[in-house]
């Protein structure tokens, strides 16, 4: 890749706690996500996948190393800059409870724009474009409780990439969905990356990782392998599990 990455993790470590109770959740991880690229992160429970994602999104700060989003060093940012980063540059998709229940789909998607000071009307118009891009513009006025899990996750993806946001950080977005619906959500995620976004996807399932351009395999906070060929993800998982 010749372009600069949307997301760069440079030798990032994260240690929780101190001294004898210290947990090294992430240990010297280096990773790039470019525009148009979907990178999957796999690994057993407790291997540091969520930690990686939280660091990438500025929800957490590395103990050492650098996190760079769209050219800006997250470690050097003030709290306000971090909040602005989360409003403008990237969005999260979690396993569940992604949407604010008192807001409609469109209002949920418009939230980061509104928080950024955009007028409601304009924010909603941009939100509609984003809902359109994930194929559920007709659900704009629904409240979350009146949407299926798959629809809710699509709204979350729409929100993660609304406006100028170009990086979606998805932590097991299909974890609460049946496999068919999960598949559909991943297809949407894939499409948004093909349209130019960068994506970092945490998943347990090799089948889902197959949608990614690359798979990064974590174990005990360390990247144990990377592959650029999705079909081998399953075998990678098997070999790692055998270790």
């Amino acid at each position, binding site marked *: 890749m010749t372009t600069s990455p949307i997301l760069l993790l440079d030798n990032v470590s994260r240690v929780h706690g101190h001294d004898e109770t210290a947990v090294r959740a992430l240990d010297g991880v280096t990773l790039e996500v470019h525009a148009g690229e979907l990178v999957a992160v796999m690994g057993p429970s407790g291997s540091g996948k969520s930690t990686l994602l939280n660091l990438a999104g500025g929800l957490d700060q590395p103990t050492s190393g650098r996190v760079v989003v769209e050219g800006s060093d997250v470690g050097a940012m003030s709290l306000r800059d971090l*909040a602005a980063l989360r409003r403008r540059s990237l969005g999260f998709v979690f396993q569940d409870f992604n949407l604010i229940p008192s807001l409609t789909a469109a209002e949920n998607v418009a939230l980061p724009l509104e928080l950024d000071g955009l007028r409601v009307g304009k924010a909603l118009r941009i939100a509609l474009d984003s809902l359109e891009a994930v194929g559920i513009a007709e659900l704009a006025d629904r409240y979350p409780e009146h949407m299926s899990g798959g629809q809710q996750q699509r709204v979350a993806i729409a929100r993660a990439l609304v406006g100028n946001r170009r990086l979606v950080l998805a932590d097991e977005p299909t974890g609460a969905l049946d496999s068919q619906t999960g598949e559909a959500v991943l297809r949407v995620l894939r499409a948004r990356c093909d349209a130019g976004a960068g994506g970092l996807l945490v998943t347990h399932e090799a089948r889902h990782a197959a949608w990614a351009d690359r798979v990064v395999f974590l174990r005990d906070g360390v990247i144990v392998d990377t592959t650029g060929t999705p079909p081998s993800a399953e075998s990678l998982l098997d070999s790692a599990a055998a270790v």
Partner: protein
Amino acid sequence: MPRRDARRYKWRSALIVAMVGLPVLLLTSGITLLATSDISMAESIPYVMGSAQARISDNGGGRMAQSPDGRSSRSTQGGAPALAVPGFAVGSAWTTDKVQKVTDGRVIQTSNATMRVTLGDRRPFMPVLRIDARDPLARGMTDLVSGRWASTPSEIVVTEAGITKGLPSGGTLTIAGPGGKSRRLTVVGVATGLTEYGQLPFLVALPALDTAGLDQTESGAPAFLVGRTAPLTWSDVRRMNNYGLLVQSRQVFLNPPPVTELDSKVAQTVVPYQNGNDLVLLIAAIGLFIETTLLAGPAFAVSAARQRRSLALAASNGAEARQLRRYVLGQAVVLGFVSAAVTVVAGVLLTFAGLTWWPPLRDV
């Protein structure tokens, strides 16, 4: 977001509104009642004393102290005998002349009684206001609607309330007594009427109406209306109390003296109508505060806890601490404001409705 939240979770919001609102409702109706009970003392002037300066009644004993509205009193100075009125025997019954000696001005007599009347095959008791209604002092207490006032003891006037109870608006009315003895009175007019406690008399008759031998119960000794140019002040009232007279003065009803000027024991029986109100309101406000913190506070905290995820989500989408605080506070303000506004209005309206439709409330 707070407004959308309140809109979305109508029932939870309604619960909080109710928890904050109910006490506010009670408080405002209380305030309204107190406010209107002040007015009701002034409002009661027409039916207590018509157009007179005062209504005076025999308290039936020695020296006494009374409340400004005359509803409560007690004997003072260890039950010392009342001052004697010059020219009248000690302990003689009060008459217009004897009252006039104490009050000056012009004095007429009035009383409330019940009389048994014959209506077809029924013989109900009916309240009758006994006063020479031709006298201008009676205006406000009873006013003529049609016909004329009774000018002899064999004439009588029925009230509009009496007509709704079946009394004739003309012709004759038979007053029934025991032993078949009865008397026919001529109905000469129709009037409006109110008695001392705001009840409606059905009949208006001259005090001289000879009812001897008929079923009749006097509800209280005769009272006297005083017509004079000078108002009776609170010190006039206290002076007359020493003659054993209870005085309901127009001047005092309009401007009650502070509670501190009352006899201390009487003051305890008086519904606080002045400084006392401040205390009542203070207590109510403190109660309100405690209630709100004990009940509404946790309810609000629960709803806030339920929104932790929403807040965390907003934070992960770049909400700053400032915006999150504004959201939580905003919700408190939205709900607080709504409930306060709604219930203050409701409290005032409900109380006025209550005053209109449920008369006993007026005596509060």
